[in-house]
């Protein structure tokens, strides 16, 4: 019998790390939401004035859109981490080949796609010269390829888990 399960240190560390990331992301999302709400008040002018000059003239609409997209990205990241945490939990319960995990992995794949779409919108809003240069930078291309690979891996793993769950179901009634 495999020792992978409740006492696996990797799973325990993952649980702590994912939990910490969720807390940090939730805190950041709350701060951004606070800023988003503040943007709708008379404080708006003061807030826009504090933005660095090299970013160009900022309108409350553009800043608000960026804030909303960043909040959406953080919420997506939290949903992604929640699914990952549940997958870790299923391994701890020694029941990873469950169709629920296949659904989770597929959802994580779509969340990754959604994040890339939001990044595209963010790129459209941040239309300053320095951002365009960043888009063309090698790092940005590598990041885009990594995201594409991650999406592919998640969708493939979702199929692997669905097949694994079906095989387990088939074995369940075997004596």
């Amino acid at each position, binding site marked *: 019998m495999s020792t992978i399960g409740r006492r696996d240190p990797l799973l325990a560390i993952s649980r702590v790390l994912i939990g910490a990331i969720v807390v940090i992301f939730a805190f950041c999302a709350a701060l951004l939401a606070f800023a988003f709400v503040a943007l709708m008040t008379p404080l708006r002018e003061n807030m826009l004035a504090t933005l660095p000059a090299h970013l160009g003239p900022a309108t409350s609409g553009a800043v608000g859109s960026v804030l909303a997209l960043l909040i959406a990205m953080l919420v997506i990241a939290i949903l992604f981490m929640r699914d990952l945490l549940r997958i870790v939990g299923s391994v701890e319960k020694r029941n990873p080949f469950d169709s629920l995990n296949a659904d989770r992995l597929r959802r994580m794949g779509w969340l990754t796609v959604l994040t890339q779409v939001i990044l595209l919108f963010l790129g459209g809003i941040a239309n300053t010269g320095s951002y365009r240069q960043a888009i063309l930078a090698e790092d940005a291309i590598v990041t885009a390829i990594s995201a594409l690979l991650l999406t592919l891996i998640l969708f493939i793993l979702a199929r692997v888990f669905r097949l694994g769950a079906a095989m387990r179901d*088939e074995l*369940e*009634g*075997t*004596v």
Partner: protein
Amino acid sequence: MAITVKLDDRLHDKRMTLTELAERVDITLANLSILKTGKAKAIRFSTLHALCRELDCQPGDLLGYAPD
């Protein structure tokens, strides 16, 4: 299910209980009960081998086919 399991007859012939058989073939009593009550979806050759060895019979003595 068109396949029937005739474990009771052999157990009676051998004067053996289900618990005793489960211990001898090294499978759980729960699984052996599933097999006995016809709720199993499949049977491993290793299980069939162990059952035939302990009950001193052929696979055909344990399994039957009843057309639907």
